[in-house]
């Protein structure tokens, strides 16, 4: 898994290095989420890293940063700041993107020498050959699902099913559906949406997230109690808009702010809700012109795309931004 192979052409190298960076990204992601460092795996990857980073033509300063962080993680993981980890995670993702783009550009898309319909058959045959002795047990399947939801929040059941079947063989839709229910019961994830033909979007359980910085600018889901409408606690001397009502959610657990468009009326307080939207740091509000003196309210903010109140286990939609709420996860 960790070895470098001589004699590969650049296209094969790009695909294999993409796989190895994927592994490194997963390790870093786990550290960000749970501060658990898999030293052994990290050490094995660290040996290849200079060659992979050099292949990716990473700027020297970035390559040095990644190298220094990896070494520090192996020696004194507690010394590595979450900012550095997030930066490294970002660099790995950019490298992966470039490798994938390079490999795809260098091959003729879906080329077969005759009869294009054979292409998918060949891919399936090769996949069966690769996976012939490989079986994911139930727990590994659930782990894969968690990994997908935590790295790309906003997957719905079908997109998870498609994604998993692009990678593995023979995972049924109903199995994915069952695993999602189990993971939700185990409080590892939350789901928002569904049933009756509407997508059921899946998100990490916000209570499990120590540091939300990795999700800034991305889609994020929350559940909890709307405790207070706090717009009047903000000063808005130079408000540039858009105009929001701002609520404090879950002040006793993992407090977060929820922003909803001003014109849609006020949310009822002390009710359980589920919501998803774009997560931003407090500085985002500052840039828009919302300023708050109370440091305890300088919290991450969720710009809501959908809010539903939860009553008897059922969701009743309160607000929906139809355009943004229709998340299209990349398969």
């Amino acid at each position, binding site marked *: *898994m960790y070895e470098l*192979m001589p*004699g*590969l*052409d*650049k*296209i*094969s190298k*790009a*695909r*294999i290095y*993409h*796989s*190895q960076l*994927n*592994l490194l990204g997963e390790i870093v992601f786990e550290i960000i989420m749970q501060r658990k460092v898999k030293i052994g795996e990290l050490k094995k990857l660290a040996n290849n890293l200079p060659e992979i980073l050099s*292949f*990716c*033509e990473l700027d020297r300063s970035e390559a040095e940063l990644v190298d220094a962080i990896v070494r520090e993680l192996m020696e004194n993981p507690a010394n590595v700041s979450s900012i550095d980890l997030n930066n490294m995670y970002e660099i790995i993702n950019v490298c992966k993107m*470039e*490798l*994938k*783009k*390079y*490999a*795809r*550009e260098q*091959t*003729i*898309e*879906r*080329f*077969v*020498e005759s009869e294009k319909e054979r*292409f998918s*058959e*060949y*891919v399936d*045959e*090769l*996949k*069966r*050959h*690769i*996976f012939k002795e*490989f079986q994911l047990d139930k727990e590994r399947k659930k782990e894969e699902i968690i990994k997908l939801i935590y790295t790309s929040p906003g997957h719905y059941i079908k997109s998870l099913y498609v994604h998993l079947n*692009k*990678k*593995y063989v023979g995972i049924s839709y109903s199995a994915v559906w069952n695993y999602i229910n189990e993971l939700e019961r185990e409080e590892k994830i939350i789901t928002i949406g569904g049933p009756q033909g509407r997508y059921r979007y899946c998100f990490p359980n916000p209570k499990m997230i120590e540091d939300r910085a990795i999700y800034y600018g991305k889609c994020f889901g929350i559940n909890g109690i709307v405790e207070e409408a706090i717009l009047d606690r903000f000063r808005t001397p130079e408000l540039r808009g858009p105009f929001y009502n701002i609520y404090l959610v879950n002040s006793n657990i993992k407090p977060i702010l929820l922003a909803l468009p001003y014109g849609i009326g006020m949310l009822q307080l002390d009710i359980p809700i589920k919501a998803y939207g774009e997560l931003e740091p407090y500085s985002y509000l500052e840039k828009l012109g919302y300023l708050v003196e109370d440091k305890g309210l300088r919290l991450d903010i969720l710009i809501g795309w959908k809010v539903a109140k939860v009553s008897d286990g059922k969701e009743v939609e309160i607000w929906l931004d139809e355009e943004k709420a229709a998340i299209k996860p990349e398969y």
Partner: protein
Amino acid sequence: MGSRALNRLENIKIKAEELHRAGIIKDITRRFFIYGYNSLSQEIEYYVRYPELCEDWKLEGIISQIGEYNHILSVIEERMDERKHKEFFNELLSKLEDFDTVDLWIIRIPYKIPRCRFLSDNSGLCFILQVPENPDYFDNNLLGLLAHEPAHIHHVIKSMVDSVKEKNRKTGESLADVLAFSIVEYMFTHSSIYLVREVLGISKASEPKRSHPSWLARVTVLRSVTDEIWSNPVVVRRNLAAFDKLLTISPTLSTTEELLVQDILKEARRWMGEWIKYRTDENLLSKLENLSDDEVKKIGEIPKKIRELIIGCTN
């Protein structure tokens, strides 16, 4: 091996060896296919050992490469390769970089955009030029596109196009365009006597083959492609400073320089369009012949050059 996909992969190795034994492909070309075969085999083996690292897009890439190699080999085996202009491209490749052996194959593929694959070592070059199935070689854009592919072997362009960084790849492709369009533009400049004679119907019956203007133009270009192009005052004036600058500062080209490449390209394309216009319009050519001295001062550089050629011919 039990699957058609893997059989197709094995076929690459078997066919390459067969074609080499039969003397159809040279050793450098055999090595091109064996290198591709080895690389894909190792990659598949890697995914067999670590299936969890495999993804659909990676398998699709592998199957596409297997398909492409097999297509090229079957075209070569069935002698269905394209021969038109092969001599031209052969010489072009030899002059762009110094090789003792060039094994060029022009292969039609069911794909709209020309592309190339190549492998070179100190002495030999295997170059596979892939052209659309029904190419119109006299389409000015296609000619430019086809000349673009050999430009890929130029060391500066190769190093940039090989880059994983998209920005470098794009700049490399633009440089290949600049070089290609300069080649084509030069060809048109030097073969204009031929074009004028063809269009005006002036007899070329008395000319031996080796002095045919078109042929001469081609040889002139090919004798030393890059040097010759850059010593042409028309081409030099427009392109050399910019191209030199680009080569000097590469590979650290910034956005500004990329824009510069695009500007040169636009201009090259516009000028080529002019040549095509005159080449195909007899009325324009006869008008040029009958211009007064005052009128001549007002016409552009290309029409002026064509006029000189017409008058030279008719005199």
